[in-house]
């Protein structure tokens, strides 16, 4: 196999990653050509898109430059629900080789489909993701993303096989067994959500396992939920591994939309497949590069279910500076919050990530926490429940009182709001084995 030719150059050159380095002018040409094709295809095959185009009086032929993408209508998760299950598919089912679905926390799930070519593209972008994070065929990789309808597990799996790594398709859950496998199988790299990995670090500590001495894990890719630089510092400090952020969503392709390189300074978007825009979430007007707004994607090569100007609800900005790694595909700042995570309390906009930052400012390690919003006689209250760990514990009530006050003070500094901080016993906040749920809004209950 010709692929073996490159193995001697391992760690220095990966043919799939060459597309990350395309000359910019050529990259824009490719994007424009693909944009025209996907708009024509979607207009022809997807009634909802055609109706919206017609309502705006826009024809596929009106897209002449990349900037013309702003003529196109937006799409949202609601469109996927409204047309459940296959309403946005652009190919007959005989062409669809794979279905995935999101866990529907409210009502119906959303369904996404892939043609054989889509599957190949998906594999390629995940290979590029993994190479960017320093994975190679020598790695033994424990893939703790859930296998099944969720795109995380099987998505990563395809790319891991693509790079020739040894894959352990363990899926999520059963943390003690995960740690046993990690140790016994000599695992060198991991994939999972950042909150699950933090849970796993805690469990390893409890089991008396030292990441640096007892395990061989060197690196990991973490995604499927927003996380912060402080969480990365915690993960890297506690384990000695390199933690890379990856980005994706099922509606676009799954994991493999964007990835951090070794510079760990924003996520490169695989722009030859995904056209990125940032818009003002209220006015939906495009925002200039560098300004924070809602991330919007148009898929450039998807066949089964193309997405046109899909609103992700994730908030970030485009970084046009060239990256020290040499990739020419642009970066987005890592996503630490989503527009639908934001809550408004006493008229102030707050993101759970701000609470997290405040807690990490007080304690070097990230405690488990939960934000509970309640309403009492018309007044909103924000309670932040923080689990006390062995490292945080001091032997006098006075010292613990002071810690509680420091948490409250730090939250007030960052959000401008008074929060009631409650210290709780370890384990009293439920752990997530998938995406962490931090916010409990009980203001409209009872």
């Amino acid at each position, binding site marked *: 196999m010709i692929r073996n030719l490159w193995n001697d150059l391992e760690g220095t050159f990966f043919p799939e990653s060459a597309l990350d380095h395309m000359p910019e002018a050529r990259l824009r040409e490719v994007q424009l050509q693909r944009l025209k094709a996907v708009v024509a295809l979607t207009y022809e095959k997807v009634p909802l898109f055609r109706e919206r185009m017609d309502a705006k009086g826009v024809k596929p032929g009106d897209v002449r430059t990349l900037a013309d993408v702003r003529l196109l209508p937006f799409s949202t998760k609601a469109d996927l629900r409204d047309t459940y299950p296959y309403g946005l598919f652009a190919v007959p089912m005989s062409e669809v080789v794979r279905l995935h679905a999101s866990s529907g926390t409210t009502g119906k799930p959303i369904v996404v489909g892939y043609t054989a070519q889509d599957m190949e593209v998906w594999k390629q972008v995940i290979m590029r993701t993994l190479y960017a994070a320093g994975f190679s065929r020598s790695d033994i990789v424990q893939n703790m993303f859930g296998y099944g309808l969720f795109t995380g597990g099987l998505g990563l799996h395809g790319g891991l096989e693509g790079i020739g790594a040894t894959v352990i398709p363990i899926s999520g859950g059963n943390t003690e067994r995960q740690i046993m496998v990690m140790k016994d199988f000599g695992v060198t790299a991991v994939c999972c959500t950042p909150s699950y990995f933090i849970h796993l670090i805690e469990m390893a500590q409890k089991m008396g396992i030292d990441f640096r001495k007892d395990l061989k894990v060197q690196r990991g890719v973490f995604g499927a939920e927003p996380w912060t630089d402080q969480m990365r510092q915690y993960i890297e400090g506690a384990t000695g591994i390199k933690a890379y952020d990856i980005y994706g969503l099922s509606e676009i392709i799954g994991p493999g939309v964007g990835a951090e390189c070794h510079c760990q300074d924003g996520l490169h978007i695989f722009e030859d497949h995904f056209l990125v825009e940032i818009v003002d979430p209220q006015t939906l007007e495009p925002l200039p590069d560098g300004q924070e707004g809602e991330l919007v994607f148009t898929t450039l090569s998807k066949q089964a279910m193309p997405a046109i100007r899909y609103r992700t609800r994730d908030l970030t900005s485009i970084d046009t500076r060239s990256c020290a790694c040499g990739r020419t595909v642009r970066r987005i700042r890592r996503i630490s919050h989503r527009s639908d995570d934001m809550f408004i309390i006493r008229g102030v906009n707050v993101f759970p990530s701000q609470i997290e930052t405040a807690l990490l400012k007080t304690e070097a390690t990230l405690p488990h926490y939960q934000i509970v919003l309640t309403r009492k006689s018309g007044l909103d209250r924000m309670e932040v429940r923080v689990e006390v760990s062995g490292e945080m514990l001091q032997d006098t*009530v006075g010292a613990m009182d002071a810690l509680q006050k420091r948490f409250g003070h730090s939250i007030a500094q960052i959000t401008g709001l008074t929060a009631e901080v409650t210290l709780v016993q*370890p384990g009293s906040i439920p752990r997530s084995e998938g995406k962490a749920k931090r916010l409990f809004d009980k203001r409209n209950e009872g």
Partner: protein
Amino acid sequence: MKITQLSVFLENRPGRLSALCRTLADAGVNLSTLMLSDNGEFGLLRLLTPDVDKAKATIAAAGYAATTTEVVALQVPDRPGGLAGVLVLLEKAGVSVEYMYAFAERPGSDAVMVFRFDQTDKALAALQSAGVPVFKPVDLFKA
């Protein structure tokens, strides 16, 4: 001689203390003495046991937040002014008592008090030079 004391964080809610005691009992850990201080919302349970390593491991495995502290157990004459004499001695040495409590069992006719000092080594030196008997763990738990 310092004694290792275990402090455990407990939420001030019904059943929390009994759950911890049950966990220790199931592991066969015998508690020599206990002291709880709280602020209404949460408390710190301090405990002394002959088997501190086992107690610590049991508590950690059960998922509690716990930490160890060095305390000093003293024999205090059981007569008026017995404790005052010891405290004056420590005050003169510039040592503060962060908290103290009585040891549940009495090995002899005198009282046994457990002290947490801000400067344990300094306190021990002052006690030693004044000839105040300080318990070794082995003697304290033998009683």
